[in-house]
């Protein structure tokens, strides 16, 4: 059974739909990617699963079963208890995710106290071990420092240390390396990979970067306009991209491994050129393969292991 099983998740802010029926699952000890561009609903999906969306003005429906328990219908207090211990999250901006006026050490021991009941010297010792594990040199000294005294990469390591403090079974990372330089990004990705391998933690990786996906993820879900349009193992997805959107994304990225004069094949238009999923394929206005069936009602998810949402896929490949 999957560790996390999200089914028909829908999130609307007022009358704006952000997530429009997302299904995916995360297995124990695996890295699952949610990939898409801004506005595709990937971040909102993760916030909904974590129960971090504001209550006012937001409607959430569908289910997100974590070991059989639907997180979306849990009372707030139960969800709060699970957050940090069963599921933890790492955000894109490490500076605003840390409290600027509290020492690093205190921010870590706070989590250890709340979820693991560790106090005093025991908590301090554990915090030191955690910092050591995420590769922060001289952890004892760092415990007494404030977030602004650390570099961006170090802050992200601290956030990861806090997230893994209670050995969560699911770690959600929302664009954890987007704000970082490429050499620091490599360090952080390596760290995440090691944590998953060593602890068997499941990782839900939210990113726009297909390179990061290729290096880290086992399964990939590509999102467009609030829905999964393609879902497969990473190897399969990159070898046989099926949905025109996935194909277009791959064609848009300049690659270091291809000849230098290889032309880019961008997707035309922008995410503003969109139609509602119930009228047809939301990607149709930007798609080169568009045909009659594309605007003929809701396109279904086709296939199982390598699923996609393109009604024209079979005919034009």
């Amino acid at each position: 059974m999957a560790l996390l099983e999200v089914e028909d998740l829908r999130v609307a802010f007022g009358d704006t739909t952000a997530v429009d029926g997302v299904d995916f699952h995360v297995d124990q000890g695996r890295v699952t990617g949610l990939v898409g561009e801004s506005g595709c609903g990937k971040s909102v999906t993760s916030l909904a699963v974590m129960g971090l969306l504001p209550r006012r003005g937001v409607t959430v429906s569908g289910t997100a079963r974590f070991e059989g328990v639907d997180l979306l219908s849990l009372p707030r207090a139960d969800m709060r208890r699970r957050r940090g211990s069963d599921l933890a999250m790492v955000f894109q901006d490490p500076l605003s995710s840390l409290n600027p006026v509290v020492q690093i050490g205190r921010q870590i021991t706070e989590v250890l106290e709340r979820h693991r009941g560790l106090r005093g010297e025991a908590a301090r010792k554990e915090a030191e071990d955690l910092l050591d594990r995420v590769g922060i040199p001289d952890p004892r000294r760092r415990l007494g420092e404030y977030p602004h005294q650390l570099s961006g990469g170090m802050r992200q390591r601290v956030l990861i240390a806090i997230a893994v403090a209670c050995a969560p079974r699911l770690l959600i990372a929302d664009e954890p390396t987007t704000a970082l330089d490429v050499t620091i990004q490599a360090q952080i990705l390596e760290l995440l990979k090691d944590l998953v391998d060593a602890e068997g933690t499941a990782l839900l990786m939210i990113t726009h970067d297909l390179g990061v996906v290729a290096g880290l993820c086992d399964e990939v879900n590509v999102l467009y306009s609030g829905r999964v349009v393609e879902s497969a193992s990473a190897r399969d997805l990159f070898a046989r991209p099926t949905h025109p959107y996935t194909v277009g994304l791959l064609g848009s990225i300049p690659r270091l491994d291809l000849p230098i004069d290889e032309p880019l094949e961008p997707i035309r238009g922008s995410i503003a050129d969109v139609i509602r999923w119930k009228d047809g394929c939301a990607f149709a206005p930007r798609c080169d393969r568009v045909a009659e069936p594309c605007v003929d009602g809701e396109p279904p998810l086709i296939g199982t292991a390598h699923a996609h949402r393109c009604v024209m896929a079979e005919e034009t490949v």
Partner: protein
Amino acid sequence: MTLAKIERLDRLVEAGVRARHAESGSLWRQSLRRMRRSPMAISGAIIVALFLLVAILGPWIAPYSPTAQTWGGEVFLNRNVFPGPRPENWFGLDHLGRDMFSRMIVGARQTMLVGVVATLIGFAAGALVGGLAAAAGTFGGRWGGRVEAVIMRAVDVALAIPMLLLALSVAALLGPSLSTVMIAVGVAQIPIFARLLRGSMLAQAHSDYVLAAVSLGVPKHRIVLSHIFPNSLGPVIVQATLVLATAIIEAAALSYLGLGNPDPGTPEWGTMLADAQRFLSSAPQLAIYPAVGIIITALGFTLLGEAMRESLDPRLRRQS
């Protein structure tokens, strides 16, 4: 590709485009549209509109002349106990037998005049001072920096003086009159506007579009006037609305202290409040009417200002 299919696709896309285009137009127009949806803005606007209407039409809609002591005899007979609300005088009578309702209505004009003129004085002079300081500091080089420093230190000193004290000394200098109150309250607002506009302009001066204008070779004066200044006005306009509220209260306070218009013939809410003081224990309603009038008007402007602040706030703008 069949024609029918393309048509349907175009229709669907267009529907989406139309829905989004509801949010088009310049930023000012967008703010206005947002304000129309805010209950705070609507209630503020209704109060302010009512007040303005009364202030403008006062003499024509007042049932009686505000100075006529029609019921004088009645008042003097009862010594310090004045008739309260009754069918012919909705708000009752004052100590000279004048109709309070008419006096409130006619007095609104003076109050509005003081508030608006004082705010305009503060706004104009403050914007000039703050704008000059910011322009000098941003583009004036070394000397400009010094000019800015001198201006802003002077503003800091002025800010340190309690507003009422500043207004009082201006009023003392010019002698009691309506224009004294206007100038006094206006002058007291100058440093606030100056600081606010300078801060707002400095923030804009560091934005990318100003750098872009420099790189395009736009002359400095034009960068200040056509790029930085219009984009800095939002918070200042909001402040002006809020200042209108305090200006009305301050003007009332100055009138209350006897620095306002000495002419007893023109009713003014602050003076009315001062006059009512003597009868506070026997006829508190004489103080309550002008006080409530001042509070509600100030509230109206404050609501409007707060709603404007929200609708102009760039963080909220991003979300739409």
